[in-house]
């Protein structure tokens, strides 16, 4: 991995972290009610976003993400201000028009399908986009991401069963972001295994586990898994062990918790390796923080949704695609 990519990953991780911190601050300043997001997953989610084949339609990758995927969106090029808009529920929120929770993305031009408010259902939906891609051929794949606890829902098994049907194998990368908790419930109290991806084994689905707090290891693991899925048109199941740095959500306080911080580790490593100075790193943080502050001011000036639009799009009103 060359240094420019390493620095780009660092900057994106910082941008994602700062964005999440801003969102949490907004729950306290009355700029939003509820926060849920991905601080602690940047080391995995940024590489994921960078490796996506971004575009519209089956030739590009479909993303079935979860509510901790902000870093993936930013790495794909999303504007942070749009996440602030969703947080404040203003009409300009491009993902849901102020209708959905923050970090619940939906972008048609990038194949980011609506992040679902219910846990794990994306694993049952992802087989559908992958099915279209299997038939289309090419290199487009489907990526589905969710948490460890949620894999207890039957939908995780559904993704394994349907993606490994003999002769009908699906080009799908099935990710489990294992932060070892579902809200307050520890994984080790509910799961017989520590590597949930190993559930793919009896299905003959290749699987791996990666340190999701290490962006370089994550980049390599994702690249390898994706290469396999793109070329072989077969499923791959990848567990990333990640952190949940601000706890579950604003409902559980949103304060910082004592877990590994992949971003700080990575930054320290880059500095130790001489690829970044302490000042340069600080500048990256500052710049992002400043930019976001300005963004927030912009967003504060934007209107809330007009109540008279309440019925809009109940049925599709756009052009039929």
């Amino acid at each position, binding site marked *: 991995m060359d240094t420019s990519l390493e620095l780009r990953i660092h900057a994106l991780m910082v941008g994602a972290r700062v964005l999440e911190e801003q969102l949490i601050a907004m729950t306290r300043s009355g700029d939003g009610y509820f926060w849920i997001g991905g601080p602690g997953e940047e080391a995995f989610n940024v590489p994921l976003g960078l490796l996506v084949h971004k575009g519209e339609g089956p030739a590009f990758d479909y993303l079935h993400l979860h509510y901790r995927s902000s870093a993936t969106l930013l790495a794909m090029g999303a504007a942070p201000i749009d996440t602030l808009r969703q947080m404040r529920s203003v009409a300009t929120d491009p993902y849901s028009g102020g209708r959905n929770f923050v970090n619940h993305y939906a972008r*048609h031009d990038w194949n980011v399908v609506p992040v679902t408010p219910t846990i794990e259902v994306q694993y049952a939906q992802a087989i*559908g986009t992958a099915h279209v891609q299997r038939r289309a051929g090419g290199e487009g794949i*489907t990526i589905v991401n969710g948490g460890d606890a949620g894999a207890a829902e039957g939908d995780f098994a*559904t993704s394994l069963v349907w993606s490994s049907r003999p002769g009908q194998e699906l080009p799908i990368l099935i990710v489990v972001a294992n932060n070892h908790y579902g809200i307050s419930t520890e994984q080790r109290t509910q799961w017989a295994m520590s590597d949930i991806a190993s559930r793919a084994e009896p299905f003959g689905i290749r699987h791996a586990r990666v340190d999701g707090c290490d962006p370089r290891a994550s980049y390599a693991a994702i690249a390898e898994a994706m290469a396999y899925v793109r070329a072989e048109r077969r499923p791959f199941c990848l567990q990333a062990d990640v952190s949940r740095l601000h706890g579950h959500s604003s409902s559980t306080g949103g304060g910082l918790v004592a877990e590994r911080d992949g971003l700080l580790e990575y930054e320290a490593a880059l500095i130790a390796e001489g690829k970044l100075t302490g000042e340069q790193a600080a500048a990256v943080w500052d710049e992002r923080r400043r930019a976001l502050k300005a963004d927030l001011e912009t967003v504060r000036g934007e209107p809330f949704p007009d109540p008279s639009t309440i019925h809009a799009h109940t049925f599709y*009103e*756009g052009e039929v695609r």
Partner: protein
Amino acid sequence: MATMAQAIRLALHYGEENLGVTDVFGEDVGPPLGGVFTCTQGLRTAWNSPLDERGIVGMATGIALAGGRPVAEIQFCDYMFNAIDLLKLAGNASWGSNGAYHLPMVVMTPVGSGIHGSMYHSHSVESVLTHIPGWKVVMPSTPLDAYGLMLAAIEDPNPVFFLPPKALLRTKGEEPIPGEPEDARELHNRIDAPLGDRSQWKPDWPEVGRHLVPIGKAKRMREGRNATVLTYGRLAPVCLEADKQLRAEGFSFDLFDLRSLVPLDWDAIVASVSRTHRLLVVNEDTEVTNFGEHLIRGVIDRAFGELEAAPVLCAGADVPGIGMAWSLEAASVPQLPNVIAAMRALAVAPAREAGGRGFLELPTRLARYR
């Protein structure tokens, strides 16, 4: 004449060839069976799924998200209750993304009683499904309507439930599908899969034509004056027969097969009630929080002043299942005698007396008609 199952098959064939249908799938939908009701025999895009309704609904959603046009079958509507969340999510994809996504998908699932389906295999689902916003809901009662509603459902950019009544899938209609061979035997020989080995079999499709039944338009089956009767599905032919028998007694009914439950044809309904001043709703779902109660409330909202007798719901008994024994099934979902009794009772109910509170309190519980 085609049966309703054949009509659906022809519609799906038309959809594959002309409307961009990419996948017709579900449990036993592909070869060799072609559906437990034969609705999907011989179709080019039909395939068998794992036995997993959540996977089926999820797969359909994903196909539609990726620009495909799926018709997913839930083998019996009774198996859909583990996937209501996924159906709700499909229904809110457009609204929730503020219009960024839309899901042109059809979920087809046979509904209702009348085939000795016993306790659990006889559900009506319209009360649950009409309560899921973002979906259209259609239910045919004739082969031609099945054909036309399926074409309309496929063309619709929204998710649509297509709900053929189990009990009518093998019945023939009175109107031909455009392009259907005149001789039913010929149709049978050309498109029904043979018994025995089917591995070499291919259907010989007739050239069927475009015929859409617009979603949202009710069909007035009979014109009459004693009351407006709203029904759909299995009970549409039952109500027709009841009307026929009651005409011999001098009654007549303005009889509607709604066909489309979401959206509703309120114009037609209100116009009729404004003429007959009486309303009967006939369906077979259980009676508590029943879609027919929505119809009654909708009429009250729009035309309460027109009602000269209490509007009546004739529906299924509020019991946890349909008994296997015929004596039990007949006692829990409306049958012809119940419908006749309800229609007659409404027709003869005295109009409310001037100035008083003299409305007849009509017994509307099925049990009381027995």
